């Protein structure tokens, strides 16, 4: 990776959406919106609602399915010199495994991020992220189905993130990423209706940053595989916090909606920080928080 700064799944489309505004070649990686075995329509609208320093979304993982994605978007993505990480999900362990298997030999796909933690899937998928046993089965299954780099993405709403981080490592994951959005809900008191058609959704944005830093710190402390820090990054300092508590890379999510070039600015800011402190690589920052 040219930079440890990636763009997070679901917040950057499949690449083309931001290509006019952001030089894709300057991204650490593009993590595309979650892909399932078959095309999926996702939730009814409204799908997002803005709250204080946050956004709650219940998009519901609409996607063109593995084949649709490979056909519609991979030719575009292959034109760029940027690693493509496919975020995958399924409704059953078997679906996860099948999706992983299909991506195994797709030219231009560098890694699979395993979304076990999307709170917007009703059919039980949410449980993959908070039930340790189901989590293990999914990671195990995906690991067995592909030679690609496998990065389970952890849910924040668990009693002990360390247990999930270790389980991912034990199951042979090459890295972990965290956090996914935090389950949340908002009500329109005028109409007494939930603000999201799906009733609940996932909170993202600057408001969850400090929660994510704490979780990354806990998780990074118990595993030896690389950790990707995600949650509320809007500026270089936010990314540096993740690196210092133990992440080796980061991903910018919601902030791309506000400022499409956030990931590039974070990259520049990290470079300046290294310069100013006479450091030659990001690696020299990882896990250096002074306790």
């Amino acid at each position, binding site marked *: 990776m040219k930079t440890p700064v990636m763009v997070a799944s679901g917040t950057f*489309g499949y690449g083309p959406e931001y290509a006019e*505004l952001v030089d894709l070649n300057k991204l650490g990686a593009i993590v595309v919106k979650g892909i399932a075995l078959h095309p999926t329509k*996702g939730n009814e*609208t409204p799908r*997002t609602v803005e709250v204080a320093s946050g956004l709650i*979304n219940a998009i519901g993982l609409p996607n063109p399915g593995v084949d649709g994605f490979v056909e519609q978007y991979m030719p575009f993505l292959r034109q760029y010199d940027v690693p493509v990480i496919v975020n995958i999900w399924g409704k059953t362990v078997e679906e996860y495994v099948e999706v992983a298997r299909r991506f195994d030999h797709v030219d231009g796909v560098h890694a699979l991020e395993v979304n076990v933690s999307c709170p917007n899937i009703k059919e039980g998928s949410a449980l993959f992220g908070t039930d340790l046993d189901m989590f293990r089965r999914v990671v195990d299954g995906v690991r067995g189905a592909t030679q690609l780099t496998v990065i389970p993405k952890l849910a924040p709403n668990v009693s002990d993130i360390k247990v999930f981080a270790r389980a991912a490592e034990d199951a042979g994951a090459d890295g972990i990423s965290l956090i996914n959005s935090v389950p949340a809900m908002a009500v329109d008191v005028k109409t007494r209706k939930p603000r999201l058609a799906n009733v609940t959704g996932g909170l993202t944005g600057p408001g969850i940053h400090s929660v994510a830093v704490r979780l990354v710190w806990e998780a990074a402390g118990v595993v030896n595989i690389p950790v990707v820090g995600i949650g509320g990054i809007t500026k270089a300092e936010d990314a540096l916090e993740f690196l210092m508590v133990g992440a080796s890379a980061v991903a910018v999510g919601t902030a791309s*909606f*506000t*400022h499409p*070039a956030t990931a590039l600015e974070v990259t520049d800011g990290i470079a300046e920080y290294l310069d100013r402190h006479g450091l030659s690589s990001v690696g020299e920052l990882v896990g250096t928080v002074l306790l």
Partner: protein
Amino acid sequence: MQCETVKVVHQDEVQGGYRLLWLDAPGIAPHVRPGQFVHVLVPHMEEALLRRPFSVYKADGPVLQILYKGVGKGTRTMTYLRPGDQLSLIGPLGNGYPGLSTGRYPILVAGGYGMAALYLLARALPVQGVAFFGGQSASDILCVDEFEALGWEVRISTEDGTRGERGIITGVIDAWWTARDADAEPVEAYACGPNGMLHAVARRAMERDWRAWVSVDRNMGCGVGACLTCVLKVRSEEGGWAWKRSCKEGPVFECREICWEMEEAG
């Protein structure tokens, strides 16, 4: 499409809470087509993460104008903008209105900021027809002189009767339609306004064989097609439906595309 830091040139109130904002946007303004919008990052509102979408009212050289009303946090904060203030704009966005089909007669139907949103179109169309403007009250009827100056006939209704006919605009449209020569050219309608108005136009278009382009107002996230917030249901080939992104494939749709019955709720 680009993301540009632009400068406020001027801002003032037009009437009834509607305000006009002039922005020096040399990168974006020259490229705006009728019906397109810009995505505004409202400054001094850090706890709000999303940009706000606004149709471009006028675009002359490097300057573009937005006509808006303070309805919530973002638009109310915008009223504080002063000349020289900077803000970030993404645009031009969306597909905009298509041109007039040969042999069709254009009508415009607008409510609220929709009048502003149709101005560039009114200026660009090769033929001037009738513009139907509806509102709650006289203060909601905007830009009439501008449209008349372009050669459009403007017909007005207000619900409280303070300007034009009393009632909703579809009454005026229906009266015009009834009085119209049966063998006049077929109509091509362009509409922008509240969803109820758009649906009313759509129903008439489908009954009367008009072509009708409606610009829908959906809550938006990214504005560029990435977040899938702004989707609406359109008919798909196999008799089913599919989501389309109003920021990307819209905000303008031919009214037959939209699954109105499913959209009523949204």
